[in-house]
C-alpha cells in the first residue's frame, strides 16, 4: 500500500487519460454496434464475431492493397455481410437472435483461423511490415504545449472518428425522423406499423449500419490499436461492448461513458499491478465493474419503470 502512495504521481499522471481512452475505443465501437440494433429491439450478441471478421478482413486487404483506407472499407463491408446474414435469419425467418449471434461468434473464430492458415500459411497469427496501419494524427502546434500535447497528439485517426461517431449517432437517434422511426420500431412495433412505418425495412437498415460499425471496430483493433491479426484478438471486447450498451440504455453518449469506465479500470489496473497488487485481483476488475455497472443500471431502469407504471395507474 505504501508503494502505491509513494508512486502516486506515476499511477495518476496525464498519460492515464489517453491510456483510458485508448483501451476504451475498441469497446466504444463495439458498444455503438450493439446500440443501434438495440434501439430496434434486436440484441446484437454477434458483435464479437462481426468485429473479428472485420479485423481479419482489414489486415488482409491492407496487406495486399497497401492501403489502410481500403482495409477499413473492406472490413466494414465484411461486417455488413455478416450482420445481413443475422438479419435475414432473425427478421425474415424469425429465429432467435441470441442463437444466431452465438453461432456467428463461433463461426468467426473458426473461419478466421482457417483463413489465416489458407491465405498466409501461418498458424494463429499474422503480422508483416507490409500491413499498412491507420495513421496517427500529429498536430504540430500541440507539440510545444506540454499537457495538451501529451493528451491529444498522435491519436489514431479512428480514435478521433469514435468521438465523431458518438455525436453523430446521438443526433441520428434523437433528432432525426429516421431515429424516431427506429425507436418506434424498437419500442412498439405494432404502433409503428399502424403509423405506416415499414418495420422490417427499418430493422434491416439498423442491422446494416450495425455491421458497418462492427467491421470498423475490428479494423481499428487490427490496424489502429495494433498492426497484426491474432486468432481471437477481440478477446471478449465485443461482449464488454454489449454490456456497456446495456449500461447506457443504448444511448450513445451514456454507452460511451460506460466504455470509458471499462477503459479506466483496465488502465488503472495495468499501473497498479506494478506495485504489488495481486494480478488476479487486478485482472478481475473490469469484470467486477461490468457486474456492478449492469446491476446499478438495471436497478435504476426498474425503478424508473415502476414510477412510469404508477403514473399511468393514478391517471386512471
Amino acid at each position, binding site marked *: 500500500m505504501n508503494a502505491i502512495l509513494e508512486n502516486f504521481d506515476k499511477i495518476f499522471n496525464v498519460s492515464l487519460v489517453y491510456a483510458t481512452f485508448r483501451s476504451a475505443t475498441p469497446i466504444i465501437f463495439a458498444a455503438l454496434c450493439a446500440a443501434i440494433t438495440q434501439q430496434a429491439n434486436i440484441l446484437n450478441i454477434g458483435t464479437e464475431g462481426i468485429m473479428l471478421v472485420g479485423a481479419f478482413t482489414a489486415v488482409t486487404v491492407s496487406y495486399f492493397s497497401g492501403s489502410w483506407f481500403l482495409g477499413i472499407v473492406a472490413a466494414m463491408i465484411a461486417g455488413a455481410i455478416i450482420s445481413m446474414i443475422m438479419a435475414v435469419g432473425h427478421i425474415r*425467418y424469425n429465429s432467435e437472435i441470441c442463437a444466431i449471434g452465438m453461432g456467428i461468434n463461433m463461426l468467426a473464430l473458426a473461419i478466421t483461423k*482457417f483463413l489465416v492458415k489458407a491465405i498466409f*500459411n501461418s*498458424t494463429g*497469427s499474422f503480422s508483416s511490415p507490409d500491413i499498412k496501419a491507420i495513421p496517427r494524427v500529429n498536430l504540430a502546434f500541440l507539440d510545444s504545449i506540454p499537457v495538451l500535447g501529451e493528451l491529444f497528439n498522435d491519436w489514431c485517426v479512428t480514435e478521433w472518428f469514435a468521438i465523431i461517431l458518438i455525436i453523430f449517432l446521438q443526433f441520428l437517434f434523437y433528432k432525426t425522423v429516421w431515429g424516431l422511426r427506429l425507436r418506434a420500431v424498437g419500442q412498439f412495433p405494432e404502433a409503428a406499423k399502424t403509423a405506416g412505418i415499414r418495420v422490417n425495412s427499418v430493422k434491416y437498415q439498423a442491422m446494416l449500419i450495425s455491421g458497418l460499425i462492427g467491421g470498423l471496430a475490428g479494423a481499428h483493433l487490427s490496424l489502429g490499436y*495494433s498492426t*497484426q491479426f491474432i486468432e*481471437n484478438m477481440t478477446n471478449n471486447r465485443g461482449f464488454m461492448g454489449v454490456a456497456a450498451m446495456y449500461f447506457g440504455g443504448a444511448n450513445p453518449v451514456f454507452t460511451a461513458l460506460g466504455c470509458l469506465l471499462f477503459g479506466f479500470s483496465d488502465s488503472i489496473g*495495468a499501473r497498479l499491478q506494478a506495485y504489488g497488487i495481486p494480478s488476479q485481483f487486478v485482472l478481475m476488475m473490469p469484470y467486477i465493474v461490468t457486474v456492478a455497472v449492469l446491476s446499478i443500471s438495471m436497478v435504476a431502469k426498474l425503478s424508473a419503470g415502476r414510477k412510469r407504471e404508477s403514473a399511468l395507474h393514478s391517471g386512471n
Partner: protein
Amino acid sequence: MKKRMLSVVLMAALCVSMTACGSSSEAPAETEAAGGDAAGGETEAAGGEQAAEGEQSGDPIRVCVVYTGNLGDKSYNDSCNMGAEKAVEDFGIELKSLEGTTAEEWEANLVAACEEGYDLIIGASSNIADYITEHGPNYPDIKFAVIDTTVDLPNVESISFAQNEGSFLAGAAAALFTQKTDIKNVNEEKIIGWVGGMDIPVLHDFYTGYEQGAKYIDPDIQILQAFAGSWTDPLKGKELTLAQYEQGADIVMNVASGTGVGILEAAKEADKYAIGVDLNQDGDQPGHVLTSMVKRVDNACYLVIESVVNGTFEGGSTKYLTLAEGGVSLTDFSVMKEALGDQFPQDIVDTCNELAEKIKSGEIVVENYEGFGPQA
C-alpha cells in the same frame, strides 16, 4: 417448409465451419513457411521413412503435442513445434498438434489424445501438468512427457529449464541498459519492467532470476511487474507494456508467449526497448529488442521424442536443462548492435558473458522460486 430448408442450410454451414477448424490443423505439408518467421507450416505429417529403432516395427511412432495456447506465438509454442517438426524429419514419426486457449480445451484435448492411443503425448507447458497428473494414471500404457515442470508419475518424463539463470542475465542486461542515458529515449530513472502471461509458478521462477540479476548490477533498481492473465491477448500485453513505459521503464522483459507479440509491438510504438523470450525475437521489432532469453523448448521436445524412438524413454525421470548445458541463454545482441551502431554499449555484452561464466562455474548461485530447481 422454408424454415426447414433454412435450418438445413444452417446445419450445413455449421458442418462446413467445423471442417474448417479441423482442416486448419491437417493442411498438407508441401508449402514452406514463408520467411522462416512463420513457424509451424504443417501440424500433421507422416514421414516417409520409418526409423529403424522404432519400438513397433511397421507403423510410425505416433506423437501428440498438447499446447496451452496457439501456435504462431513466435515464442514458446512455436519453439516446441520446431523441435517436433525436426523429429518428424529425422525419425519419420507421425505428429499431431492440439491447440487450445482455455483450460477446458486443454483438458479436453489431453483426454482426446489419450483416447486416440498415441505412443507419446507431450504436454507443452506447465499449465497442462494438473491434467496429466489426473488422467495419466488411467492410461498406463501411454508415455507422457511434460515440459517446463515436473509431474511425478511412472509413465511421465519431465523436462524443465533453469529459466532463473537465463533471466538473471536478462535482468542484468536490462539494469545496465537503463543506465545508458545517451541512447535514444532512455530516461534518467532507474526503472525496468517485466510483463508475464499467466500468473503461474514458472513465471515467478523467471521473475526471481530477473530481479536478482537486476539487483546484482544495481541494488537500488526498481522493477515493475505485471501479468496479462492470458497467453493469447497481445492487445492486453501491449497496454500493460505501454503503462510501464509511461511509469518510467525504458526496457521491459517479455515472458508471455502469444501475448508477448503485443509487448514487442509496444516497444516499437513507444520507441522504447524490450527483451524477447523463448525464441530469438531480436529481429521481430529490429532495433527495439535488446536481446532474447532463449529457452530451448525445441531441444526438450526433440530429445523426448528421440528417447521414445530409441527406446530410452524413462518414465518418472526428470531432466533439468541449465545455462551450462545450453538449455537457456541470451542471444548475441547482433540485431541491436547493427541498429545502434557506434552507440551500442559493448560493456553490456561483456558483463553478461562474464556473469554467464560465473553462473556456470557456480560462483554466482541464482535463486529459484519455490518448487523449482535441479532437485525439484
